[in-house]
Structure formats: structure tokens, C-alpha cells
């Protein structure tokens, strides 16, 4: 029982090494936190509560996609009583004008892969003639 120091020391070293990333982040001042989203200055989302939109915007968009392309239904009445085009680039991006600071920031954080932009050009990007 003379090895107690060695064993305890080794264990301590092991725990220290395995939690190194945590200490590294604490030291660098970059602890994990949710992304800071740039929300529209005022108003509410016309298609659902923030919780609903956060959880279900992908189903909403995919349903719109099928309704427009396969069903020919192009408009939807929002909760605010206004009529909106069922469009990714026109409707969503009209309010959430910065894709980089809203959609992309959250998709990056959650590592969600969204292929829509391969075809649906972000209007503001196109105007700046990027890509």
C-alpha cells in the first residue's frame, strides 16, 4: 500500500487531461452558449410562436414547398391576418433579412445541413452579385 500517492496522482492527471477541453474553453473565455440570433426589431412571427417556429420551421417550409409546387396553392394567411406568399426567399427572408446572422448562425450551432440555398438564391446575396 505504498503506491497510494502514485495511484491518486495518476488518477488526478488522467481526470485533468480528459477534461482539458473544458478547462481550455474556460481559460479562453468561450464557454458554450446558444447562438445570438438577430431577430426582427419588432412584431411576432406570423406563422407561429417562437417556440413553434424554432422546433417546426423545417416542416412548415417543406409543407409549403409541396403545396406550391405540387398543389398550386401559393399563398397563406398568417396569424396577423395578412396574406403571405409561401416562399422561402421572399417571405421568410423579407423579415429575417440576414441569413448569416439568423438561419446560418443557428444551423451552424446545431450542425443542421440545409441544402435549399443551393438553388434558392438569397436575394440580398444575388444583388451583391456574390456567387
Amino acid at each position, binding site marked *: 500500500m505504498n503506491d497510494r500517492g502514485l495511484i491518486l496522482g495518476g488518477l488526478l492527471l488522467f481526470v485533468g487531461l480528459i477534461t482539458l477541453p473544458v478547462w481550455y474553453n474556460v481559460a479562453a473565455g468561450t464557454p458554450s452558449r446558444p447562438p445570438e440570433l438577430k431577430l426582427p426589431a419588432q412584431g411576432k412571427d406570423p406563422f407561429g410562436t417562437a417556440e413553434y417556429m424554432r422546433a417546426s420551421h423545417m416542416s412548415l417550409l417543406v409543407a409549403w414547398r409541396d403545396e406550391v*409546387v*405540387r398543389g*398550386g396553392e*401559393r399563398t397563406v394567411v398568417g396569424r396577423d391576418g395578412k396574406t403571405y406568399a409561401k416562399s422561402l426567399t421572399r417571405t421568410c427572408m423579407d423579415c429575417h433579412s440576414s441569413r448569416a446572422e439568423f438561419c446560418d448562425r443557428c444551423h451552424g450551432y446545431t450542425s443542421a445541413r440545409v441544402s435549399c440555398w*443551393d*438553388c434558392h*438564391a438569397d436575394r440580398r446575396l*444575388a444583388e451583391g*452579385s456574390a*456567387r
Partner: protein
Amino acid sequence: MSLDRRAFLGVAGLSALAVAGTRSLDALTRRGRAEGASEARAATRWAMVVDPGKCRKDDGCTGCIAACDRAHNVPHFSERAHEVKWIWREPFDRAFPDHGGSLPEDAARSQSVPVLCNHCDNPPCVRVCPVQATWKRADGIVMMDYHRCIGCRYCMAACPYGARSFNWLDPRPRIKEPNPEFPTRTKGVVEKCNFCEERLALGRPPACVEACTEGALVFGNLKDPRSEVRRLLRSRHALRRKPELGTGPNVYYLV
């Protein structure tokens, strides 16, 4: 309840007759219609009438083609293998290979005609698509759902008019003037003319028709006897491309 042999046979026979009757009624009426076949009851059947005589093909006018390419972000590849086409020119004798030499329009034969998807009544491309990414709408438009296309290119093999193109490369760098109002496509999907369904939905004519200053392209509803397309087809003889294949093209060429 007791049923003697005679009554039982009577009831069984009547039931069999009723089942057989509804079956054959279905077969004779619309309900038994094959998938992809035309919807004869719809009030609209979009069609185009091309007047090659009015088309300014000789001075190299490409107004209709340029307008379509701009409206739909159609890319330009100079290599033939990568070409993407929605509306383009085809020499007359290649567009109408079956009109060998017996017709009098020799003058027309040397020239080219604008060709595009024929939005067939009986589209072979629709029948072969394994994922229903292309289908026939009630108003006659052969639609494409780019979201669903898996790029198998069966439809391209099936189309006798070469009206479908495959994106072998990323089209975005090859789009001359990007139009942010219409999505582009990506590498790996098939695309073709959509009769400007996105413009029809807004009550506007197709981009090529609007762009043609000579009135060589006329668009309208074949189901409406007073439409311009019907008037033209009543008054003049018209050809369709490869009618012998039974595809029922909805693009007509006046001679």
C-alpha cells in the same frame, strides 16, 4: 333466417353482377383512367402555336430564348455535352424528321424553328419517372418537382424531343444574369420548360411569348373555342412534332 338454395343463388348472382357492373363502369368512365393520362374534364389545356413564317430566324433573333433563360436562370455551357435548354432552335428537318420531302414548304425546311417541351397529352417522361418528380397537371402542364428529382435521367431517355437537360455541372457560375425571383437548379437534377407556370399563376403570359416582337409565338387555352390558339388552328394547317409516337404534343407549328 333461412335461405333455400334457389334464393341463395339468386342473391349471389345479383351481387356478382353488381360488382362486375361497377367495375366495367369505372373502366368506361374517368375513374379507371391510367395514371398520367390526360384529364379531359379540366377547363384548361395550355398550348402554344408557333408561326415559323413570322419568326425572324434569319437575322439571328433569339429574343424568346434569351427571355426564357433570364426568367428561369438557365445556364449557358458552350460544350454540347453540358448544354441546358428550355427553348432552343432546331433545324426544320431535325424537328420534323418525318416530313421527308413530299410537303411543299421547302422554304421552311431550310430554316430553324423554336422548339421546347411539348407538354404532351400522354407524356412518356411522366410514365418512367420512378419518384413522381414529374407529372401532368390538370391544365396540361408537365411539371417538374426539382425537390424530388434524383437525377436518374430516365425521363431524358423517354422524351422523344430531347426537351430535357441534365445538370452535369454546377449551373450557377454559368448563369449570365441571375434572376433572384426564380430558384436555380443544382448539379444532379434534370430540368426543362415549365410553360412558365409561375407566370401563369400571376396571370401573365410565358416569357418567350411576351418577348417575341413578331407574334410568332401564341399561347392559350385549347379548351376555349374563342381563344387565339383555337382560331389559328381552325384557320390554318398545323404540324406537331412526331405525332406518330402518340405522345399528343401541345405545341403546334403553322405551315
